[in-house]
């Protein structure tokens, strides 16, 4: 299946979606750019800590609601720039959770449970301040009535915990994650940190995997303990080399400091941002053209060292 087909089939106006990765690593960027090119609108987006993917989707005008723990791209943008602007100007609605809470919410969805408990966030505005009003929640069947609920532990003081915070499950229409290796059937393998990708993947009604390498089934089945995503969860597998670029993909390539710095500069200015979108997003047909546009020299610079999995001595200022 092509990326155009996969995104066209599953990501619609108003869809509830989640995307994998964490800050500047393994964001499913090729899929994000395709969503932007298709001018999908009114997405309800769920992430824990995400950077470039969130910012590009918001910058492309695709998102109307977001449930998030952290919007930042490390040193390249301590707070994601278009995200910041959209929240300040009120052009998107936001609900704040913590990373652990978002992870538990995806896990609850994956397990088919309505909620899971945690001891995180007592006494904070994460509990007291709601982004989506009670009324809006009641009127939207795809969103739970409560942001979260504090309750006394039904087990008394067992494990020295008198109270718990219950966080509601997330079940998305579609989740997109980028993995290092997958086969045609859909089995996926992530190398390095998995973040919450596995929980995100399994909490979706439909799952799209993009992969750096499409490998023979035998290659993955020979070491099944290294595979995190069994094919039974997967709806579409798309082979997209450099599919996480300009974010990093462990053992394949590093993040591209040049691209991320140029993006940050463009994102701060309406005219420059318009030019950026025209050239790098709308002006190319897909990831292959984007990579060609950026050029071989930069790809060489960010190519991962096989031992450490990142580009050693990469200029990152």
């Amino acid at each position: 299946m092509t990326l155009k087909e996969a995104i066209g089939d599953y990501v619609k106006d108003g869809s509830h979606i989640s995307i994998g990765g964490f800050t500047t690593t393994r964001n499913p960027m090729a899929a994000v750019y395709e969503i932007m090119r298709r001018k999908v609108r009114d997405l309800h987006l769920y992430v824990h800590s995400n950077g470039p993917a969130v910012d590009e989707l918001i910058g492309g005008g695709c998102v109307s609601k977001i449930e998030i723990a952290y919007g930042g791209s490390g040193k390249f943008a301590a707070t994601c720039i278009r995200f910041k602007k959209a929240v300040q100007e009120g052009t998107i609605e936001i609900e704040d959770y913590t990373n652990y809470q978002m992870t538990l919410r995806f896990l609850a969805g994956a397990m088919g449970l309505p909620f899971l408990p945690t001891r995180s966030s007592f006494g904070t505005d994460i509990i007291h301040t709601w982004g989506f009003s009670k009324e809006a929640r009641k009127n939207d069947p795809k969103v739970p009535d409560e942001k979260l609920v504090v309750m006394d532990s039904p087990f008394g003081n067992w494990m020295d915990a008198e109270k718990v915070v219950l966080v509601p499950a997330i079940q998305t229409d579609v989740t997109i994650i980028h993995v290092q290796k997958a086969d045609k059937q859909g089995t996926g393998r992530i190398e390095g940190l998995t973040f919450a990708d596995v929980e995100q993947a399994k909490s979706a009604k439909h799952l799209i995997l993009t992969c750096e390498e499409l490998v023979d089934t035998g290659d993955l089945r020979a070491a099944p303990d290294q595979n995190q995503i069994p094919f039974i969860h997967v709806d579409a597998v798309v082979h997209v080399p450099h599919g996480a670029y300009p974010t990093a993909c462990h053992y394949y390539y590093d993040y591209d400091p040049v691209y991320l710095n140029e993006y940050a500069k463009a994102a701060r200015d309406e005219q420059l941002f318009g030019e950026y979108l025209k050239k790098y997003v709308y002006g190319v047909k897909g990831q292959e053209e984007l990579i060609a546009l950026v050029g071989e020299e930069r790809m060489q610079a960010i190519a991962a060292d096989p031992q450490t999995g990142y580009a050693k001595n990469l200029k990152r200022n």
Partner: protein
Amino acid sequence: MEYTSREMMTIVAAREIKNGDIVFCGTGISMLAAMAAKNINAPESVIFFETGSIDARLEELPLAVADPRVMYWASSNSGLLDAFATMQNRITGEHVFGILGAAQIDKFGNINSTVIGEYYKPRTRFSGSGGACDVASFVPRSIIFMQQEKRKFVNKVDYLTSPGHLTGNDGRKKAGLPPGGPELVITNMAVMRFDDTTKEMYLAGYYPGVTKEAVLENMEFSVDVSRAEEVEPPTENELTILREKCDPQRLIL
């Protein structure tokens, strides 16, 4: 030897880290402090990230907690569920030492990294909690890095993202949190700690060339200064290791 306030802050934090500590790091100066401790005074400390990496060999400074540099030569690479379990685990959790940063702090060490102004129409939106509220909720000890400014040391934070000692005294317990809360605040001028009983912030140290009065002038609320002493400046050895080994590209320094 000349040094910057950033170098001073990093070294002051590194000195607090002991062998056996499992150091939870956020992005930026907190990573550098953990690397400095590991290279200078606490070689047996363990650097730990919410993304799931435990005891990676940081040959280059990571620029985010998901940077592939945190994945190299780790004891284990997993994900967020495992990382937050490590902080709550009744055996390993006791050893976790958190390092956080924020835009605003109050006298009980409650911090804001979400918005300045009104939540629904903020003047400035920041990244949000990420894992900060989780760490601040779970771990027994933590450091908070701050810039010493009146608009940052405030009577009331605009949004309480991560719990400190909440309302002081046994505020954490009443709210349902495990024991813990911030142990010290490190700024570009001074070091603050929290009273054992009231959990209220007090001035514990000021840097060479800084007066107690100057610190107070840069805070909206007043703190006890009677226990304050001048902080030892970084040594030549500390500075050399920090500059040459931890951040030779000067990405954070």
